[in-house]
């Protein structure tokens, strides 16, 4: 990881408690321009809680989140203009045409020459023919790619992707990964990526953080983590951490 690159996201001692239970405990990391950070962990590890706090949807119990050098709590709107988000668990209104949904978000983000931008993104994600289709009639793969179009509308400097390939077949998942990699390389976007698909993580992420019960248990490049854990694959590391809570024997 280059230390010279601009820091996009800096999280320090982020903690979240719900009813006396600590679901995220002093979580800290730094994400720089051009990096893709994978946030991994079993269900309940704290990934979603962390993601929600980074988006300002959940208030942290303590700790700080700085994006583009600014405090998220104080400069949320200014920051969100340069950030975008896509999740397998959100959708765009199903009763609108594809172009209508994108036109609304293009206007919200103030995208110049919105029609051209929308057409470019639809072509990039190979769903140009869906422009006049009703969103609710799209397949899971088409909906995911539409969500990604929405997430790229404002040419974000920071992209948060929550399981972007969940429920996709291997062919579409591969296409989605390739597009994310291409856009990330062309524009040097910083990406925070959560997934339970280790193929995604190995292909897309330059750096990983494994969470277990709200605590960081491993951090480094995918290769370093596999080597350190003495496992043969990242999937084995995932299973080991999920079952034992530790990376080492």
């Amino acid at each position, binding site marked *: 990881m280059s230390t010279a690159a601009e820091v996009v996201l800096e999280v320090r001692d982020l903690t*979240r408690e*719900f009813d006396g239970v600590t679901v995220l405990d002093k979580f800290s990391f730094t994400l720089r321009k051009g990096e893709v950070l994978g946030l991994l962990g079993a269900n309940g590890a704290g990934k*979603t*809680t962390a993601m*929600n706090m980074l*988006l*300002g*949807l*959940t*208030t942290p119990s303590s700790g700080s989140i700085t994006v583009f050098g600014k405090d998220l709590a104080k400069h949320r*709107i*200014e920051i*969100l*203009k340069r*950030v*975008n*988000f896509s*999740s397998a*668990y*959100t*959708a*765009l*209104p*199903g*009763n*609108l*045409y594809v172009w*209508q949904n994108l*036109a*609304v*978000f293009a*206007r*919200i*983000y*103030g995208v110049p020459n919105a029609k051209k931008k929308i057409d470019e993104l639809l072509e990039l994600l190979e769903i140009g023919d869906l422009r006049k289709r*009703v969103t609710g009639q799209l397949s899971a793969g088409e909906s995911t790619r539409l969500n990604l179009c*929405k997430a790229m509308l404002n040419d974000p400097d920071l992209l948060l992707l929550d399981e972007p390939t969940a429920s996709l077949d291997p062919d579409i998942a591969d296409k989605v990964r390739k597009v994310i990699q291409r856009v990330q390389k062309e524009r040097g976007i910083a990406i925070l990526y959560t997934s339970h698909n280790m193929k995604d993580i190995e292909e897309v992420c330059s750096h990983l953080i494994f969470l277990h019960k709200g605590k960081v248990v491993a951090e480094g490049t995918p290769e370093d983590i596999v080597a350190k854990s003495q496992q043969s694959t990242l999937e084995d590391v995932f299973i080991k951490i999920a079952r034992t809570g530790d990376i080492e024997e």
Partner: protein
Amino acid sequence: MNFRIISALVMRYIFLYTRTPMRLVELVFWPMVDLLIWGYLTIYIKENTTGAFPAMISFLLGAMILWDVVFRAQQGVAVSFLEDVWTRNLLNIFVAPVRISEYLTATFAVGILRICVTVVIMCVVALLLYQFNVLVIGWPLMPFLANLLISGWALGMISTALILRWGQAAESLAWAVPFFIQPISAVFYPVGSIRPVWLQNVALAMPTTHVFEGMREVMQKGTFNWQSFSNACLLNLVFMAIAGWIFMSMLSLTKKRGLLTKFATQ
């Protein structure tokens, strides 16, 4: 506040309504049913009573149309919010650079659009079927309408706050909240008819009560009661402040408890 963002959000609702003709059922069908029932009741009472009462009874139709202003304005806020919940789009909005004030202003504008559709149709039908012209109220109609609109927005914010707090289980409140205050808003009868008598004091704390009392006076005596109007304005200011505080408190509580995401992705 950014007008571009507000217009984008309003555009989304316009797309929604023009794309889904079934929405017209809600906007046109139910108000028409109300209008027909109240219209026939008005005719029946008029034909079977004597003295000054038949002339007064035509206020029922006007009151029904004007109450719809409150209801549509409230629905503009609460149902617009629910549309985002139902379509799992709420998170997309909340992670976009949209201020809460912009979001609420867009829903207020949607309320005005809903009123334009519903109330205009009701006024035309009331004129054609019952020869009741809501414009006989004259210029006082506008300041009173504005007050009803603000009352509806305040109720809409309270409805939305309750849904935020208790989740989709509470979504029927989006339709119920205005009717909590309707019986004590003196919509169809003077405030003096409300029983028990102590409840009249509660009724007088509602901005809507002063609007309907004022409207009745305009229709019966032809005079504009400035006291009713200023009471309505003052109480609406208080109502909006309280509703805004409740909305922001509930939103903050929802974020603190981490419920917003769960609620939005259910």
